[in-house]
């Protein structure tokens, strides 16, 4: 039965838009607690060195309340590998390394005292490339690991395979091999990293105002680091100025702030400067991907052989685990007979990477989609046709065990191919006459790329669930207490829309409580494009239970025995008699008359997905999202500048919940993808960051937004709320690949490295002449 939806699918402004645009939103930076101190961190000046430290002069400054070094604390190492000491003792291994921290009465005093800490360094040469670190005679960089791997500088490995590689190689009419190099990109969130810690010495409880994306995992990690009981730590999330994956892990500055509060018994706040944000926040995982792939003479993909080396930096964070997602793209995007995948994370004296929107997928998709163009050229096949031929299909279970209950891949591809051809009329024919076109200053090209990403959460912990408690008060207002959290992506709005749709309550009467671990039920956190899917389903479950209670009371009051009621405009209406009663009246009757009962319900939703086995096989997500992009670029052959002219995006979103927010995700994702493709790179030399500022870290701006035509593809997945799938990461994932393909199409060059800077393009043009 198809129910007409009143709010779902309609453009609805963000629930928190008014506080954001009027400056009323309270970010972590705005918090001031009584008696609060200001914290500051001293970082190393050298990426690899031994050191001694003298804090005596700094301690004497009036207003300095506390200074800590590694000698003053009793903590556990952090990171999932437990290879990262919070404060470093005796040696530093990366330019971010924290060696002392100060709490002072003012920010100025803290900064002044930092300068008076005397550090003597014995500088070491350091290792700044993963291949160098793998050499036998390389010194061990991280001394905190168990050493279960053969090489002392290996932090993590992944191996995956399916199909018969040798058989598939034999079937191949063409085999192409390339080495792809992917840069360090940083999140550059508008709100810099911040934390306010308040430890209560009388009851031993720690209150943290933190921008984490994963409050419950963070609570556990913080407790482990500080040797505390997790339940004695309460996390409150103020309004968060951007996440994009950067706040998925806990970093040293956070337990450092807690320690300063514990030592002083006063609240302490640490806020990064923009420069510190560039230097000390995690990045997208840089990597080198060796990819060999084959195609048979009809154009069917035969095999993919992948060997990835990731620069792990000096410590491990989530960047090391990006192969979870990377292998999905290689094993399961387009049909492929065999896949052999190896990835190694190697310690170096560089900065470590974390998670970043797409979680390895933009890297994988860049390599894979560039490779598809190369394979098509090799067998003389049209680049649109080869993709359509191999596209994923509904009902397919891939070699890795991902099951596509719904799949909009082909429709996405067809849409962007048709729409882009309509506008550009540029075909492969004009490409082959490019000898002529390179004589012109401006040359156009078009490129395609698709992506596959989890669309129904990702079961990488024992539970990928989310809890909801829902209540309606005697005045007909509804409060959603959800385990999920808001990092700007709009989950509050989507949840309020769902409650409004189902309960007939005006959006203005719906409150979303989602910021306090002492109140809200458990949830894994914001990642894997999961919030609307998982929290939406969880809310729908709670609504169902609450409606049963409300229906029962309504039947009693209306003297009916209906099973179905319509909830509309604050009324509950009998679908048989047509009689109706105000929702708030029903709630009052529940609360205040015998047998008294609360209008409240709780539900825990767990997606149907599986935890993958040791071979990384299994249906890891509740559903899967697909997207294709066609991008037209114009290259200025005089300067090497690439201008993105048109972007056609088709994305299998399952069902559009809020077109406004969806458009926002698409536009933001495309621009972030364009930055990854063309301009953004955190440049490093000998372990030091050369461009820790927006001046030289070339994040694109509103002026660079091209024409974007977006076509949502609705496959109505029965697992999703109203059929919806996760949408947040997808728009960024294929963008760099499509741009690279478009530039190659325009110029007849072979791009194997990001970002595609004007200088690289001009050099490639010169090589070609």
């Amino acid at each position, binding site marked *: 039965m198809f129910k007409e939806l009143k709010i779902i699918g309609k453009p609805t402004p963000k629930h928190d838009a008014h506080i954001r645009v009027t400056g009323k939103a309270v970010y972590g930076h705005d918090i001031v607690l009584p008696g609060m101190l200001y914290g500051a961190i001293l970082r190393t000046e050298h990426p690899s060195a031994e050191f001694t430290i003298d804090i005596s002069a700094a301690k004497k400054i009036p207003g300095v309340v506390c200074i800590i070094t590694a000698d003053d604390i009793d903590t556990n190492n952090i990171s999932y590998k437990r290879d990262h000491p919070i404060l470093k003792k005796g040696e530093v291994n990366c330019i971010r390394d924290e060696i002392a921290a100060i709490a002072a009465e003012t920010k*100025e005093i803290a900064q002044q005292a930092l300068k008076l800490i005397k550090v003597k360094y014995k500088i070491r040469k350091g290792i700044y490339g993963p291949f160098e670190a793998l050499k036998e005679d390389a010194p061990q960089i991280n001394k905190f690991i168990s050493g279960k791997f053969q090489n002392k500088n290996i932090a993590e490995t992944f191996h995956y395979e399916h199909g018969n590689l040798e058989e598939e190689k034999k079937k191949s009419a063409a085999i192409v091999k390339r080495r792809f190099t992917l840069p360090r990109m940083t999140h550059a969130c508008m709100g810099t990293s911040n934390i306010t810690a308040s430890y209560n010495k009388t009851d031993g409880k720690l209150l943290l105002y933190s921008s984490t994306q994963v409050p419950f995992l963070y609570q556990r990690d913080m407790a482990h680091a500080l040797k505390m009981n997790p339940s004695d730590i309460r996390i409150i999330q103020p309004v968060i100025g951007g996440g994009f994956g950067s706040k998925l892990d806990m970093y040293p500055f956070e337990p450092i702030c807690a320690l300063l509060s514990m030592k002083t018994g006063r609240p302490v706040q640490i806020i990064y400067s923009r420069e510190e944000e560039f230097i000390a926040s995690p990045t997208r995982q840089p990597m080198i991907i060796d990819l060999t792939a084959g195609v048979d003479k009809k154009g069917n993909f035969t095999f993919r052989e992948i060997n990835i080396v990731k620069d792990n930096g000096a410590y491990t964070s989530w960047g090391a685990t990006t192969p979870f997602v990377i292998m999905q793209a290689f094993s399961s995007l387009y049909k492929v007979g065999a896949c052999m995948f190896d990835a190694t994370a190697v310690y170096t004296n560089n900065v470590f990477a974390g998670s970043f929107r797409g979680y390895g997928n933009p890297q994988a998709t860049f390599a894979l989609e560039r490779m598809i163009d190369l394979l098509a050229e090799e067998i003389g096949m049209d680049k649109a046709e080869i993709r359509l031929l191999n596209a994923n299909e509904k009902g397919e279970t891939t070699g890795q065990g991902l099951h596509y209950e719904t799949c909009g891949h082909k429709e996405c591809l067809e849409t962007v191919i048709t729409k882009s051809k309509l506008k550009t009329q540029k075909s492969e024919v004009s490409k082959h006459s490019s000898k002529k076109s390179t004589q012109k200053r401006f040359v156009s090209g078009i490129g395609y790329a698709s992506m596959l990403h989890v669309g129904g959460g990702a079961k990488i912990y024992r539970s990928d669930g989310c809890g909801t408690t829902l209540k309606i008060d005697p005045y007909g207002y509804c409060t959603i207490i959800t385990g999920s959290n808001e990092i700007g992506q709009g989950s509050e709005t989507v949840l309020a829309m769902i409650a409004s749709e189902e309960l007939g309550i005006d959006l203005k009467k719906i409150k979303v409580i989602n910021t306090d671990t002492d109140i809200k039920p458990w949830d894994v956190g914001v990642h894997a494009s999961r919030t609307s899917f998982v929290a939406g389903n969880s809310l729908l479950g709670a609504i169902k239970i609450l409606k049963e209670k409300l229906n029962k009371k309504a039947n009693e009051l209306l003297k009916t025995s209906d099973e179905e009621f319509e909830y509309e405009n604050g009324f509950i209406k009998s679908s048989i008699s047509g009689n109706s009663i105000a929702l708030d009246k029903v709630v009052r009757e529940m609360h205040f008359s015998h047998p008294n009962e609360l209008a409240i319900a709780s539900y825990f939703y767990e997606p149907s997905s599986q935890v993958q086995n040791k071979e990384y096989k299994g249906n890891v997500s509740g559903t899967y999202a697909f997207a294709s992009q066609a991008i037209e670029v114009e290259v200025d052959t005089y300067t090497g500048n690439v201008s993105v002219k048109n972007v056609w995006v088709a994305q299998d979103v399952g069902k559009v919940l809020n077109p406004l927010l969806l458009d926002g995700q698409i536009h933001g994702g495309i621009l972030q993808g364009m930055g990854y493709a063309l301009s953004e790179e955190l440049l490093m030399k000998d372990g030091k960051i050369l461009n820790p500022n927006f001046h030289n870290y070339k994040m694109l701006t509103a*002026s660079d937004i091209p024409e974007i035509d977006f076509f949502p593809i609705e496959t109505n997945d029965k697992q999703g709320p109203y059929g919806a799938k996760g949408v947040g990461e997808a728009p960024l994932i294929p963008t760099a690949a499509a741009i690279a393909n478009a530039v190659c199409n325009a110029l007849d060059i072979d791009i194997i490295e990001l970002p595609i800077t*004007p200088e690289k393009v001009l050099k490639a043009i010169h090589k070609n002449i």
Partner: protein
Amino acid sequence: MSFEIINPTTTKELLSVVKNLKRKKFRFGAGCTDLLLELRKKPEENLTVINITQVKDAVFTGIKKTSKGLTIGSRVTAHNIVMNEEIKRNFPVLHEAALNLASTQIRQVATVGGNLCTASPSGDIACALMTLGANCEIINENGRRRRIPIHDFHTGVRATALKRGELLYSISIRGNEKNKKRIFSRFIKIGTRKSMECSVVSLAYHIQTDIKGKIIHAGIAIGSSAPTIRSTDSACKFLAGKNIFEISENEKKEFAEKVVGYASPISDIRATAWYRKEVLYNISKGIFEDILSNEE
């Protein structure tokens, strides 16, 4: 970063403030878009910033048409330049340079004087002014004025001809030639993004011709290519008398080589010297293609 701020409101007050502070550490601040960055990087102790944005002085803050051309006060903002019709019509190179500066927000506060006095090799407005044969009017704490050609204003990277106690008061540009019938005038800024960009290479040209396209006067300057913004005089002379629509391939190359002759770029994290020279050569040649294709 901390400093004292003094806010004079008249020119007289301004000059007396300068006089009083002459033996102390002081800096002028208008839009402060460069100054604050500089002071954050290199904080100075006991510094006073003389905020000149409150000074009421028609010449200092205005754009005025004169019998000889145009006078632009050094406190005029990039936004003021963008909005000025006279400039847009007669000196498109200056309009375009101001329009491409940073972002809308920055253009509201960034000033012409600041762009010149920062003396960055990548100064956009300064580069455009170079093609217009501008003169700088300088005032000292005693109110004494002197004029120097813009070519002599920049003496090195972040160095100007200003002496202690002197302030850039206004810039005057010569009107276009009486017999000119057409103007080909553009500011070409090469960088990675469209806003908030510091040019990797820039090329400004202001070429006046008769009705048929014969070049009467040409001003051409390059930015981000040498320690200072350079006027490419031999390239300008090379063009004089030629018809802008009939420049041969060889002449284009010769012209471009002359322009590049003024470049002595460095390699830094934004671009290599090779790239800067290569692009400068290409876009110099490209001037005439642009002009022709706009005619079509």
